[in-house]
């Protein structure tokens, strides 16, 4: 063992220090170097586009609308990515943190980056961007593959129609927020199974439970402000009237964006508090 072998040769000491960008790069290497996380990202694309193809193929049996409309096209294109994508993204969000706890990697991570909030926020940003990118591929891909199927019935809608691109991007952003929601829950609970169960409950079960309870104004309001309702709102076009209309049950895309962001960031903050306060 010579002295030289353990010495650093290529970089001057001043250059290798922590920075937030480098922590994000580290998180990007982590998310792209596991079969499970890459698989879930690919599943968003596959299930999103697969659902759209199936809907496109069965469009005639479902009953054709009388004329082409942006709303009808968006339903065909976004439902798979938003419905399945939000769950996959939530599970992925839980996984990127809770798998660190179950494998013990969290120790190594926090020794390299003692600032815990930097770790969590770097994870959140990398996760959001990766998931939103996968969802964008799924959504624009879905639009592209269903375009000829809709065109066969004269129902095709181009990307240049007002609100279309915004709705597709909105859908991708929504799925990204679902992943951040999962990350917050995973950070809070630290366990894979409990985290997955909780994220599914928040996204999917809450609206179902609310629909079973006799509809009062309070229940309707909660329903409108739920995570999954925000997903519906983000993937539709604005009708130009209200921001949110409780009486009508209407949530505008802008309000949907706000609601999804609040859900995701609220859980992220709760997770951050736990991460900062507790021993690793």
């Amino acid at each position, binding site marked *: 063992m010579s002295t030289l072998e353990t010495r650093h040769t290529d970089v001057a000491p001043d250059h290798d*220090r922590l920075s937030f960008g480098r922590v994000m790069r580290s998180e990007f290497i*982590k998310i792209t170097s596991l079969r499970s996380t890459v698989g879930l990202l690919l599943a968003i694309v596959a299930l999103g586009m697969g659902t759209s193809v199936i809907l496109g193929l069965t469009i005639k049996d479902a009953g054709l609308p009388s004329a082409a409309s942006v709303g009808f096209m968006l339903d065909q294109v976004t439902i798979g990515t938003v419905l399945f994508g939000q769950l996959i993204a939530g599970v992925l969000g839980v996984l990127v943190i809770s798998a660190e706890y179950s494998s013990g990697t969290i120790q190594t991570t*926090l020794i*390299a980056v003692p600032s815990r909030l930097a770790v969590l926020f770097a994870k959140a940003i990398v996760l959001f961007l990766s998931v939103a990118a996968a969802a964008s591929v799924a959504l624009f891909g879905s639009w592209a593959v269903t375009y000829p199927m809709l065109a066969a019935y004269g129902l095709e809608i181009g990307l240049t129609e007002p609100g279309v691109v915004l709705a597709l991007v909105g859908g991708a952003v929504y799925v990204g927020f679902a992943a951040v929601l999962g990350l917050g829950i995973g950070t809070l609970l630290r366990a894979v199974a409990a985290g997955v169960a909780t994220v599914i409950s928040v996204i999917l079960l809450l609206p179902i439970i609310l629909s079973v309870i006799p509809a009062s104004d309070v229940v309707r309001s909660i329903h409108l402000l739920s995570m999954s309702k925000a997903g519906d709102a983000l993937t539709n076009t604005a009708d130009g009237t209200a921001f949110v209309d409780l009486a009508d049950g209407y949530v505008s895309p802008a309000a949907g964006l706000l609601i999804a962001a609040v859900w995701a960031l609220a859980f992220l903050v709760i997770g951050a508090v736990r991460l900062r306060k507790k021993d690793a």
Partner: protein
Amino acid sequence: MITAEALVKRYGTKVAVDSIDFSVRPGQVTGFLGPNGAGKSTTMRMIVGLDRPTAGRVEVNGRPYREHRAPLREVGVLLDAKAAHAGRSAYKHLLSIAATHGIGAKRVREVIGLAGLDSVAGKRVGGFSLGMGQRLGIATALLGDPATIILDEPVNGLDPEGVRWVRTLMRSLAAEGRTVLLSSHLMSEMAQTADRLIVIGRGRILADDAIGDVISGATRSTTRVRTRETERLMATIAAPGVVVSLLADGAIEITGLTAEQVAVAASAAGIVLHEVASVSGSLEEAYIALTAGEVEYRSSNIVQEGAVR
């Protein structure tokens, strides 16, 4: 350099680390010894900021670990072999850690080579043996070329070649002027590797000294003598405070006189000695003696607590 001042860690009512002070100096290997649950791992976790001290402070190279701008360059740590995701390759695992400090792929390959992991670097960590996991952990600790190295049980699961590699590595890192803190339950290994020892039991420091002084302080050294005139020698050296016992192989063991004193006395009496040797205690004896006292302390403490209730 690691410095702890009045360091305390309490979990609920259980005191894991009970106001300890110590310093680990550069240029030597410091062994960290103690029974399971003595507070070794907790102390190491507090040094690198994984656990927050309940009271007191611990600093690395002059400031708390969290305040360093390039922590991996300050301290290299192995706390848990295989603290890596089973599904990630060893190379990507190291690369992800290196990336946080902008350390390049070249250095990652260097430490992989150093740890002897070249042939398995692309394999997923899940298939690693404990020994390979230890090598990966040591490679991780060396990534930032740190001034201080902390290794918790690094030789667990290593083959003899690996054990020897760790020993040589620790010695050479200390020789370069780095601070090396090493915990192990393998006393013979510790005796060969460490210059200084910190012995901890029930969260308190039982000994903190050069390894030779720890051993001589906790064990008695004896003089071993062989002669044909055993009985005459025993009569010659008999004195208060001198204890002589006959060993099974015919030699005698003398406590209370040095080898020199025995030789002088024998010569004056005209007794021929065939063998005279000083036998000092082993690290294992010293460790058992030090920590056995700690077990007694614990049971009397429990009795006291009972009496109060």
